[in-house]
């Protein structure tokens, strides 16, 4: 069983529906730690030692967040800037994160068609996540495509919210139990593109 760390970042959780539903869906799962960055560090004063220990204790690191300005909320940038220290995360001596899996679980207002070369947003989600992918590469993390819930700007019907949340739970559980076909899924645009074909039955 792998241990999973979800670094959760939403500055206005009270007004969130999708992210909150996803967070609640994985809360309390065995082997899953949810760490809420905005409530832990409302003043952005990140406890680097604690964060590094958390990372070391887990095998999979997931950033769960809304997609703000084609990127993460600002606290995640602060987290990367401070926690990923030379000699710990990267550099010839920095191997603390080596071999761990890493992905984003994100929600975005525009739907899949807008995240294309010809779409309103000009780039795919995968392309927009390039800085994070490069970061993962430098830190010897194993990159997985994002778990993406798209097209939520008008709000989603309850049923769809529930289905996304339960898919999130399935993916996190499969990652934990090593039932996710990592080979196949790494070619997909999103982790949740076609769940039944990437999750092996035990």
């Amino acid at each position: 069983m792998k241990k999973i760390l979800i670094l959760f970042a939403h500055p206005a959780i009270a007004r969130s529906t999708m992210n909150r539903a996803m967070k609640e869906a994985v809360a309390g799962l065995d082997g899953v730690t949810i760490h809420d960055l905005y409530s832990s560090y409302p003043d952005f004063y990140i406890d680097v030692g604690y964060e590094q220990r958390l990372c070391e204790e887990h095998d999979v690191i997931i950033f769960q967040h809304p997609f703000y300005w084609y990127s993460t909320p600002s606290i995640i940038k602060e987290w990367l800037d401070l926690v990923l220290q030379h000699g710990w995360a990267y550099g010839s001596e920095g191997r603390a994160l080596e071999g761990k899996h890493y992905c984003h679980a994100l929600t975005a207002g525009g739907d899949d068609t807008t995240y294309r070369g010809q779409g309103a947003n000009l780039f795919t989600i995968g392309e927009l996540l390039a800085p994070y992918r490069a970061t993962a590469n430098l830190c010897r993390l194993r990159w997985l495509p994002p778990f993406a819930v798209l097209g939520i700007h008008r709000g989603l019907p309850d049923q769809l919210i529930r289905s996304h949340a339960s898919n999130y739970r399935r993916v996190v559980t499969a990652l934990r139990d090593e039932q996710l076909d990592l080979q196949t899924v790494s070619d997909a645009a999103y982790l949740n593109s076609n769940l039944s074909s990437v999750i092996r039955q035990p």
Partner: protein
Amino acid sequence: MEHFLLQLFIFLTAATIAVPAAKKLGLGSVLGYLIAGIIIGPYVLSLIGDIEEVMHFTEFGVVMMLFLVGLELKPSLLWQMRVPILGMGGLQVVLTTIAIAAPALFFLNWQQSLAIGMILALSSTAIVLQTLREKGLMDTPPGRSVFSVLLFQDLAVIPMLALLPLLATGAAHGDGHHGGGLFDIQALPTYLRILVTLLAIGFIFVLGKYGSRPIFRAIAATRVREIFVAAALALVVGISLLMTVVGLSPALGTFLAGVVLANSEYRHELESDIEPFKGLLLGIFFISIGASLNFSLIGNEIALISGLVIGLIAIKSLILYLVGLIFKMAQKERRLLTVALAQGGEFAFVLFQLSKTNGVLTDELIDPLISAVAISMFLAPLLFILHEKILDRDSAPEEQGDSDVIDRSGHKVILAGFGRLGTDLGRLLISAGIRPVILDHDASNVDVLRRFGFEVYYGDVTRLDLLEAAGAGDAELLIITIGNVDKARALVTLCQKHYPHLQIALSSADRAAAYEFIDMGITVIKRETFDSALALGCDVLQLLGMPTYEAHRLTRLFRRKDEEMLPELHKIFKSDRDHYVSMYQKHNAELEELMLLDTNVDMEEIERAWTAGNPEE
């Protein structure tokens, strides 16, 4: 009595006229005193009587000055300076003694030559330190070197006092006795003499380190200021007496006591109590030096004496320059060292007197030498001025030190009030490497805090002399955390008047006090309880279920709005001040205004955050 008062009046009046005039002409206070002395002396106005007596009495100013210098020198700092003190000082005394004694051998026997060499090797602690202080050079590297040499010279006086009687060739005039009259240490065998001397030094150490604190605390608790002054004076006078009895230099003894007390919380209080006495005594001492110049002798022996003066200054500066070279001092520093110490010192008067009574030197030898020393002392401040003029002319920019390394410990900050608020503030500053000079009026509070390693001093901050002693003159920032509004107001007024350069940051008890300080022109004001109220409020909002980050943002928004409202409320407060009868009504009315404004606080800012619309809409 009347005679005494008249003499005192003449001295004081001469000083009051001459010193400001000399300062105005850029000559410094020492020169002013010396000129005043010449004018009231026997050769101009002839207003004063027994000059030697006055000089002898006011020599005590030098003792007090060394006590004050000691107070500013912590033992650790003194230890750091051991190399310049022993090395530079030792070299200067030995080389100068040889350089003066050698040519003297052509005219005198070796004992007399050696005596004169030793006596003239000494420089004037009084004039040099006073001038260095006035020019702000005490804390500079060359200033430290100069001080080191002076300190060694003061140490060297002790063996000189012992050595001079042994050089006697003629018949002794006096009985060589110079004890304090309590008991004669000379009567004891050598080993006992050494033992008594060591005991005396040990006594000073124990008194300063352990005995002084409970005594001063008890006195401070009475809050009668003059008793503290009396105790401080008694301490200095008592140590001087003790030193005289065991045959040591009183200046050295009080210096030692000063060093031992440098870590004490009563340091600044002692400093400010002794300072005026020292200043006056030293001033009158300088006047008496000026008055003692024997112009008829100088007139008769003009060639001999001017030759002696020139020779003395030339030899001394040459040796000092050499010492500077040996210790690899930078050119500028070497030049200051050379100029600063190229004169005879006040100890020369004492030692010449002693060598006369012991039959080492004769009157015919001593009189021109004493005149030469006095003239060289008179010239010393002039040499400083000359040195400055030369320095101004070729003020070539010297290579700067490592300016990249910002030494925060160099910041001079005074923290007035070390109560509940001051304590935490002080801790924060100390953790940032800034060591404030902390002043507090509660002796027991000071005592407790010092046990925790805070550098806290006892004293009433609204006293100008204590502020001065705490270094307000060259401090850059004063932090006021005094709960008592009247005291804080008095302190602000005092500082704005006497130290206009000093930045002020303060905590005010409440809003009304804050308005007052705004009116006084203070810009950095924090209300004592405001921040903790908001911090507690933020926690309460979270207990009620508000997400942490939102609670924080709301709190911060509230703080900003409140700060923005402050000037507006201030205006309302000022215009309505007269309408409110009682404090209670004033408080209520103000609260009403506040609440009214609070309901209008624009919370939309929070509402708009992170509710992104889609660009396609």
